[in-house]
């Protein structure tokens, strides 16, 4: 028989019929491919099914029997959570019984007198195969922790909803917990799991009321695909209430991103990408917990995708322009050109000038910033070399080193190669590392930065004051220059701002490193900073960032002073 060859193991089948001849007949047909056991009535069958529940693949069931009839047995099995998985084929000669048994949950029926044995075998195998396939799906389709669908099955079922109910207005919803890893870290995995289970219970509750399907997509990210809803505040409030029930002390913040009324032609995974975009945007704004994906978000997304697609070409074609903003040492009687910071701009052939505030955060998120950084390092190094050749002056240029660069084991090697190619030393290229990079993974950062310093690089801590560094961390941080975040300087006229700057300058003095203030715009700010002991200033007060050819006058001016 071909059927038995599909799987190695012989399945166990129970034949229930009060007629001995029928049992023998079926047994003979089945026994070549299956192990067969027999019962004479429903009661005897039920006992056997309980006993063999782990092994039993199928029940072939006569309907009219003494003791317990077939219908009663079907009902009993269907009502049992564990036994309902065992498929039943009803043996009957009655048309009306066929329908009734199928409605009760029988998988199929075999009519009496029996069909050709081959037909019986084929039906038996088909039902076993379907049932086993279904069991495998059941085991794999649900997330064991929450009982919601797993991602792959969810996507498949969502596509079915789309296919078979194309006219229903559906919302794709992404829901997660703000800083869930912190919940796990602070309160333990067990509590974290309870949170996830509670959310899943809430979601299942809604699902009962509103329909739709749900899954745990990953870690703490849940997806819902359900009929369009106008009031997500109420939805969220109910879930928050449930969460409050498991802990009065822990305030959990949920984020809900919604892609509403998804178009019927749109791919389901695309719909959830958008719901997720909306959900993740909440990270940036603490004022909201629910964000509906809108045209603005769509424009941003399309724009971001365009930038990601175009960056490689931009690098190859030199669309990225490196500008330089001078830094002046203000300690003496007149400001002296002290250095420059290399800042990147993107002259996109179609989109026009793209600001670094647009593409740098985007590329930081997806790692493409590494390519941009390397491009800037090379360009700036070549520029430093060119200026030295032209003006005979070594002007140190500061370049940005992004957080992802710090994870690159070849970082120091790459930088040293660039210096060597341009006949420069580590004194010519200063490395700016943003304060928040230190805060992310302190150990790793300290180690990498220390390694760079050991090779002679000077490290400038960028954006100081914008992050969350602790004073303790400052003490152990390996830095050579501290750059004050421009936000402090912008408030410098305000009394509090001044005091804050003074305080920071005290810290700088305590650390024994020079301070650079960036974003300085007015003479007043400059005077004030000089008064409280700031060493170097960078900002529009002296110059905006300029292309290299426009930088030359700064050298000329220095030259004139030198001649004076």
């Amino acid at each position, binding site marked *: 028989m071909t059927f038995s060859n599909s799987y190695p193991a012989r399945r166990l089948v129970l034949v229930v019929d009060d*007629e001995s*001849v029928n049992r023998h007949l079926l047994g003979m047909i089945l026994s070549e491919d299956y192990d067969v056991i027999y019962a004479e009535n429903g009661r005897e069958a039920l006992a056997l099914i309980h006993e063999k529940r782990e092994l039993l693949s199928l029940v072939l069931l*006569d309907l009219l029997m003494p003791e317990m009839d077939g219908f009663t047995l079907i009902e009993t099995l269907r009502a049992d959570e564990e036994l309902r998985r065992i498929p039943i084929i009803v043996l009957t000669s009655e048309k009306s019984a066929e329908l009734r048994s199928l409605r009760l949950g029988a998988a199929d029926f075999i009519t*009496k007198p029996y069909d050709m044995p081959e037909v019986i075998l084929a039906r038996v195998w088909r039902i076993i195969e379907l049932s086993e396939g279904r069991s495998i799906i059941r085991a794999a389709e649900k997330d064991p922790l929450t009982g919601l669908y797993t991602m792959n099955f969810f996507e498949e079922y969502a596509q079915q909803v789309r296919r078979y109910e194309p006219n229903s207005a559906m919302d794709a919803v992404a829901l997660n917990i703000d800083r869930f890893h912190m919940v796990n870290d602070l309160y333990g995995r067990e509590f974290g799991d309870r949170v996830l289970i509670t959310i899943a219970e809430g979601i299942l509750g809604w699902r009962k009321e509103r329909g739709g399907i749900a899954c745990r997509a990953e870690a703490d990210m849940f997806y819902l695909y359900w009929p369009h809803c106008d009031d997500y505040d109420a939805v969220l409030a109910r879930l928050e209430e449930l969460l409050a029930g498991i802990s009065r002390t822990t305030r959990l913040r949920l984020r809900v991103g919604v892609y509403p009324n998804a178009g019927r032609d749109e791919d389901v995974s695309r719909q959830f990408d958008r719901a997720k975009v909306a959900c993740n945007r909440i990270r940036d704004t603490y004022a909201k917990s629910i964000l509906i994906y809108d045209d603005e978000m769509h424009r941003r997304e399309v724009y971001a995708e365009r930038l990601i697609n175009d960056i490689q070409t931009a690098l190859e074609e030199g669309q990225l322009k490196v500008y330089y903003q001078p830094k002046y040492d203000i300690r003496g009687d007149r400001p002296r050109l002290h250095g420059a910071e290399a800042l990147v701009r993107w002259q996109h052939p179609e989109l026009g000038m793209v600001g670094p505030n647009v593409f740098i955060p985007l590329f930081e998120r997806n790692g493409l910033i590494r390519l941009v950084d390397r491009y800037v390092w090379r360009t700036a190094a070549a520029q430093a070399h060119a200026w030295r050749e032209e003006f005979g002056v070594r002007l140190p240029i500061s370049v940005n080193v992004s957080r992802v660069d710090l994870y690159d084991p070849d970082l120091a090697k790459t930088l040293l190669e660039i210096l060597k190619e341009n006949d420069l030393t580590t004194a010519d290229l200063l490395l700016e590392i943003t304060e928040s990079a230190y805060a992310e993974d302190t150990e790793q950062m300290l180690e990498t930065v220390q390694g760079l310093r050991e090779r002679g690089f000077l490290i400038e801590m960028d954006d100081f004051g914008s992050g969350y560094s602790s004073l303790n961390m400052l003490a152990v941080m390996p830095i050579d220059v501290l750059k004050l975040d421009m936000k402090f300087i912008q408030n410098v006229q305000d009394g509090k701002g001044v005091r804050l700057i003074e305080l920071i300058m005290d810290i700088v003095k305590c650390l024994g490193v020079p301070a650079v203030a960036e974003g300085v715009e007015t003479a007043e700010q400059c005077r004030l900073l000089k008064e409280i002991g700031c060493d170097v200033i960078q900002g529009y007060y002296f110059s905006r960032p300029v292309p290299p050819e426009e930088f030359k006058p700064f050298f000329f001016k220095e030259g004139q002073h030198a001649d004076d």
Partner: protein
Amino acid sequence: MLTIDALQAFGANVTDGMTRCLGREDFYLRLVRMIPSDRNFERLADAIGTNDLAAAFEAAHALKGVLANLSLTPILTPTAEMTELLRARTETDYAPLLDEVLRRRDELRALCAD
């Protein structure tokens, strides 16, 4: 000794019956030999005797299934007729049909004993 030829002469559709037994003659004959002692014949007779049409239906229905599987047409035909009447709980004189069923069963029994 019961043979296929004898069964054919009796009126059984041996081709159909044998097909259900995967063409195994010995197995088919073994099952046929079990028929005369099937207790449902007595149950049917008793139930008709006491006019318990529900019990009679159950017995007739069970017999019908077995006889159909073995294609024992001479006994199946009156049994099937009884079954349909009993299903509708028809008040009628079942004696002639029952006699026919039992007579045919006895004929089969005689064939088995030969």
